[in-house]
């Protein structure tokens, strides 16, 4: 009986030790590569006009940003990290820091917005900003605000490393995998291929790896990330056959945000913070840092 009790205590001690060690491991996560340290800026008394959404957010010191969790290089969160990583997230950090909120603190909620949720979440006010590989379209601009683009991208193909497929032309009448309900899937169909919907892009990559489909397609930057995850087994091929203009989404109830977002983006273009964010997130996968895209005018 006594021995049993001793064992129990030892077990508890070991469990406690394990917990301490795992906490220590969590503390290190912030130093990982793929993220730029962005410090909150000092917000002066009258930086934002009283009554604007920015002033309210800066005052509250809290913000909710909608990002993707499943797109390596743009917005990606694995089970062990608290903050997602990727280019979208880095741009979001710049915006958050401009409001005087510490980007890597609990004051920022990184809400996952899957493609279907982006407009409803903005309309309901559940998120303040959306940076979730959010293509700017006229249709979307009728119900939410979109500005930017802060990134231009186009669709390419990801195929097995030993495949002969060279471009989307080779895939006419053949299955090409992409995410259910995504614009990429429609572009695939428009190009004459047969769309094979999947839940996530990583599932598509899995299908290409095991030979269930011959190719998958979405934005080149995401494909580069997936190819980097499966080096030597997958490769990115073909010219870009679509153009996506990735922008920032905000609610139409707060139109004043547009000028502010464009201001922060322009500043990031000029200071090199934009290029730095690009190199830290999409650079390692082999993408060259392009010229920053020209921003759209804000609606008057």
């Amino acid at each position, binding site marked *: 009986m006594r021995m049993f009790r001793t064992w129990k205590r030892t077990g508890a001690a070991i469990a406690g030790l394990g917990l301490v060690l795992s906490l220590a491991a969590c503390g290190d996560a912030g130093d990982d590569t793929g993220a730029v340290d962005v410090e909150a800026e000092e917000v002066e008394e009258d930086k934002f006009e009283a009554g604007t959404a920015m002033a309210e957010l800066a005052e509250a010191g809290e913000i909710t940003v909608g990002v993707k969790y499943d797109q390596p290089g743009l917005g990606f969160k694995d089970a062990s990290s608290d903050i997602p990583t990727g280019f979208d997230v880095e741009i979001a950090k710049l915006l958050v820091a401009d409001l005087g909120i510490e980007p890597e603190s609990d004051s920022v909620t990184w809400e996952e917005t899957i*493609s*279907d949720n982006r*407009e409803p979440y903005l309309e309901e006010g559940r998120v303040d900003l959306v940076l979730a590989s959010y293509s700017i379209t006229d*249709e*979307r601009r*009728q*119900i*939410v605000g979109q500005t930017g683009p802060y990134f231009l991208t186009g669709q390419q193909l990801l195929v097995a490393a030993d495949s002969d497929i060279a471009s989307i032309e080779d895939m006419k009448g053949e*299955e090409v*995998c992409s995410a*259910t*309900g*995504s*614009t990429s*899937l*429609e572009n695939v169909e428009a190009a004459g291929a*047969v*769309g*094979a*919907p*999947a*839940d996530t892009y990583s*599932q598509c990559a*899995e*299908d290409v790896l*095991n*030979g*269930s*489909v011959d190719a998958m397609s979405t934005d080149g930057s995401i494909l580069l990330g997936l190819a980097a995850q499966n080096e030597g087994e997958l490769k990115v091929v073909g010219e870009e056959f679509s153009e996506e203009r990735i922008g920032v989404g905000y609610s139409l109830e707060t139109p004043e945000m547009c000028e502010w977002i464009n201001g922060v983006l322009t500043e990031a273009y000029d200071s090199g913070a934009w290029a730095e964010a690009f190199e830290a997130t999409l650079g390692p996968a082999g993408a060259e840092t392009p010229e920053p895209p020209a921003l759209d005018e804000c609606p008057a």
Partner: protein
Amino acid sequence: MNAVLDNLDLVVRAFSYTVLLFLIAGVLSLVFGTLLAAFRVGPVAVLSRATAVYVTTIRNTPLIIILIFFRIAGPKIGISFNFVDIQVGEIRLNNLFAACVIGLSVYTSTFVCEAIRSGVNAVPLGQAEAARAIGLPFAGVMTEVVLPQAFRATVPPLASVQIALLKNTTVAGALGVFEAFARMKSLTNDNATQRIGIFLTFAVIFVVLVELVSFAANRIERRWRIAR
């Protein structure tokens, strides 16, 4: 509404996939489920126990896991359906479609098995005893006496199982088949302003399809009804 009408051909194709998934998996699950039920109530103890374990395992596993097994894990261990490649007009039945059909059939057949077993249990024991007394072998007892009566008692629960199957086909939309659910997601992504209309249209079509299945089940139930 316009988004649906403008893409009517795509919507029709999507629902064709839904209906095909339902019909093929429905027939396969009925056949396979009946076989399972025969094993389950049969006189061979080993077969009966093994089937019980199998049915319990599959029935308690979420559908998505079974589908992912056939779609993702299967090809890794050499189970693939690459030989399936049938093109009928715009409809294309490929390896992904086949894997989803098999997954849906495997899952649904366990429910069919249990529904039929409940029907078998509803047949008075005296019926089977009488059949055995006149010298019928087990197969004869089942096919001539027990199953015909059991199927009658089974029509309502079987209809429920098949309706569930019809709705379960939407899971295939996330696993490579461009059926109604996947098409709906495409349309709502493309036409953000018409979201509610698109959703309601697809929901109404599903209700109609389910009603058709219920109607057919009702007719069969009425036709097979016997005075007891």
